[in-house]
């Protein structure tokens, strides 16, 4: 399991030293900030009266749209893929993790009917801890166990406008835990979901999914929608002799309101509540190990409320304030937890001149976590934790050569209760050397902060099969952040109007990965006791790249494909030769390949086929997999749409993931067939 590697040469900064340096930097920032503000205010010149301008002059005015437009991909110095609403619809997927398979380089593996391991550029696990996920600007990454519980976010996919998938660090803007990637799920503004929508789906696996939505408006500047969703899913069948498996049952309701009282101001309010049963307790009490075992169903319930106000100042700068409250509770009679977070965020976007675009912002988040376990489970975790996070970020984009060469420099300065200040800078360069061709390169640092679980857990583990020790896993309150120094490069080209190519490559250098330092304890008992204490003794490096292409053959036929490669190694650092990395290094397949075809042979008739290939996993005995999903859709009239979908058409069942070397098998993913009726009125 432990692979020895040569250490990456240019990893910067030593632990203690860098923390001191960060503190130093932080004392300078407040001194510098007033100057930046002064600059910002100077830029707020009086707006000329546009109605006095001639037609010709009006044509020259550059606009700032309240709804921030998608940045031209050719001008983005990062590895980004945007999954559109159309792609989600045509893929026939019913869950967010399955939708993420559409983006190049995203590793998605299903473990049970409601559990997925999702990561980017490696380190995949049920609680993949280096991927930050946001829904409309609200983080759904849990600070309790460093990961995302996908079964708590079964959004109404028809309301998703796009999913922005950023491969590589996004920490200089998004902050800690945006280490290997960021996933931004963005829902449609309320004016795009007007009228009524009713969908009913059912099949061999999804027993029943019903969705209802109604959108209305005041006919002028306020739009809203309300929706409800019910989902009931079969178990995948469990693991014969060990675990009978469990289904997924979830009810969700929510709303979104967008109000534009004036052209300078836009307000959004959105919220949701959910409740249901999931089958995950074993994963929840021991996240990184993710042992599968017979466990009682978990009751999940929670909700969120978010308010956002965007205001455009004279002079064209944009300010945005956002606040949200989110609550998530999950548990059964053995164990459970409640998380409550309040987050406030401020951002100011200043287009300083034609050549400079400056953004700065700050945020504050407080999270209270209450956890409980019954005595016989023998697991303990800090029962009451209150965490505070505050941060500041700056980013400046300078056009060194107008329309050709841009430099983006920025950093996040973030303080958390476990490791203090984290400095997460990034430097990006983009060279658009031809009108439809661009090269970019980036160097960035990102940190993954310790979780409540990693700092406080005490977990006795029974001796797993074929393993001669019983063990105890111990959290460590003195854990440091895991750190990444990433080097990336990319090339984009549109050689013809209908062809689009995107290539990226990266080299990631990780330090202080959380690992377990093992020592044997001569304790009384039938078996020797292995004490596994969490520490930061593992280093690693990964490399690879992604290649994606899209080709619009005709207005009736669209083809897309991608390939991604991932390699790397890790091992104990010089400090502790006993460190083992079995738990830390969730892996990922070396090769992934996909090809997707979307055909519209007749008006209203879609025929879509997606083929995915995933190679075997280097460390776990997960074989390679070829998966095919197909959909036939027919829009009978403007009000009625019928869909028929086959997932995993090629084989009756297959393995996508192994939970851990100790935990053994996971459930097999089955072929699924379902139909869907959509009514619009």
């Amino acid at each position: 399991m432990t692979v020895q590697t040569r250490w990456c040469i240019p990893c910067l900064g030593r632990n203690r030293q860098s923390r001191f340096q960060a503190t130093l930097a932080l004392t300078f920032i407040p001194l510098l900030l007033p100057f930046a503000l002064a600059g910002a205010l100077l830029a707020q010149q009086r707006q000329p009266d546009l109605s006095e301008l001639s037609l010709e002059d009006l044509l020259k005015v550059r606009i700032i749209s309240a709804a921030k437009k998608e940045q031209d991909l050719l001008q983005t110095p990062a590895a980004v893929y945007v999954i559109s609403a159309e792609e989600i619809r045509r893929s026939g997927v019913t869950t967010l993790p399955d939708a993420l398979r559409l983006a190049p380089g995203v590793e998605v593996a299903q473990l049970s009917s409601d559990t997925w391991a999702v990561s980017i550029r490696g380190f995949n696990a049920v609680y993949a801890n280096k991927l930050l996920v946001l829904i409309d600007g609200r983080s759904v990454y849990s600070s309790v166990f460093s990961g995302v519980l996908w079964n708590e976010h079964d959004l109404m996919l028809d309301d998703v406008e796009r999913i922005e998938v950023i491969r590589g660090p996004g920490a200089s803007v998004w902050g800690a835990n945006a280490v290997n990637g960021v996933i931004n799920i963005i829902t449609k503004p309320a004016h795009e979901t007007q009228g009524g929508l009713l969908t009913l789906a059912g099949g061999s696996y999804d027993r029943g999914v019903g969705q209802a939505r109604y959108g209305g408006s005041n006919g002028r500047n306020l739009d809203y929608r309300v929706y409800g969703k019910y989902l009931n899913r079969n178990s995948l069948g469990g693991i014969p002799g060990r675990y009978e498996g469990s289904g997924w049952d979830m009810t969700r309701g929510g709303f979104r309101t967008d109000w534009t009282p004036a052209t300078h101001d836009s307000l959004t309010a959105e919220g949701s509540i959910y409740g249901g049963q999931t089958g995950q307790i074993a994963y929840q009490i021991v996240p990184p190990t993710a042992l599968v075992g017979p466990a009682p169903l978990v009751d999940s319930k929670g909700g969120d409320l978010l308010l956002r106000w965007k205001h455009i100042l004279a002079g064209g700068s944009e300010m945005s304030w956002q606040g949200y409250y989110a609550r998530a509770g999950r548990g059964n009679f053995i164990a459970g937890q409640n998380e409550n977070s309040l987050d406030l965020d401020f951002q100011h976007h200043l287009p300083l001149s034609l050549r400079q675009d400056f953004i700065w912002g700050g945020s504050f988040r407080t999270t209270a976590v209450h956890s409980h376990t019954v005595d016989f489970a023998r697991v303990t975790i800090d029962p009451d934790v209150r965490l505070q996070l505050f941060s500041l970020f700056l980013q400046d984009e300078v056009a060194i050569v107008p329309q050709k060469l841009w430099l983006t420099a920025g950093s996040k300065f973030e303080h958390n209760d476990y490791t203090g200040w984290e400095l997460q800078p990034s430097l990006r360069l983009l060279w658009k050397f031809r009108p439809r061709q661009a090269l970019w390169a980036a160097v960035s640092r990102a940190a993954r902060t310790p979780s409540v679980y990693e700092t406080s857990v005490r977990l006795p583990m029974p001796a797993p099969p074929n393993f001669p020790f019983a063990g105890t896993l111990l959290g460590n309150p003195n854990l440091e952040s895991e750190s990444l120094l990433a080097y990336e490069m990319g090339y984009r080209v549109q050689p013809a109007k209908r062809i689009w190519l995107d290539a990226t490559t990266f080299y990631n250098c990780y330090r202080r990965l959380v690992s377990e330092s093992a020592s044997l304890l001569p304790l009384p008992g039938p078996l020797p006791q292995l004490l596994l204490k969490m520490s930061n003794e593992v280093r690693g490096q990964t490399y690879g790249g992604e290649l994606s292409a899209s080709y619009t053959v005709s207005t009736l036929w669209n083809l897309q494909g991608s390939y991604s490669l991932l390699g790397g190694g890790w091992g104990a650092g010089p400090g502790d030769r006993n460190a083992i990395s079995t738990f830390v290094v969730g892996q990922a397949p070396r090769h992934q390949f996909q090809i997707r075809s979307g055909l519209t042979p007749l008006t209203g008739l879609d025929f879509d086929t997606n083929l995915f290939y995933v190679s075997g996993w280097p460390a776990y005995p997960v074989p390679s997999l070829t998966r095919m999903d197909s959909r036939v859709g027919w829009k009978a009239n403007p009000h009625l749409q019928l869909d028929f979908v086959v997932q995993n058409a090629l084989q009756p069942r297959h393995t996508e993931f192994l939970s851990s070397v100790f935990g053994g098998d996971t459930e097999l993913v089955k072929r699924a067939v379902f139909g869907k009726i959509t009514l619009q009125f």
Partner: protein
Amino acid sequence: MARRILIAACLLALAMTAAAQSPRAPEYQVKAAFLYNFAKFVEWPSPAFPGSSAPFRICVLGRDPFGDVLTNVVQGKSISGHAILSMHLQSPAEARSCHVLFLSQSDPETLKQGLDRLRGLPILTVGESADFLALGGMINFVLEEDRVRFEINLEAAERHRLKLSSKLLAVARLVNVGGGAN
């Protein structure tokens, strides 16, 4: 580290010495100014005004993305002696007395219904949807590289007895709905 602080300081310094602003404005402020400008370069047939003191109406149908901007733009202004009035409408039936009608972004079906109700009336229809001209609209806003441009369906305007000045046509992209751009 000291170097990083230096870089940050330099960035801030750069930010402060920002060059003079290029004109920038919110999208609908620009569009409102265009609506007023269009009024100056279009000639309405005389029955469009019931009397010399009748106001010139710029109307917005459906979603109103302007807020108070349009009202502020036209306040105190007049077009050949007619004071300009801006108003918001809930249905196309109310549009009869309008001179300029802005139809905000909407689905083709709603737009078509709205435009069909105005058939034959001397109303300059302005939109911002991809199909707007094909559906019978006269002027359509398009966004190009952060700037607002507009395209004109001259045939539709003439059918409604509106005369568009050559100055307007010179800066617009003319679209022949029957066959692509000229």
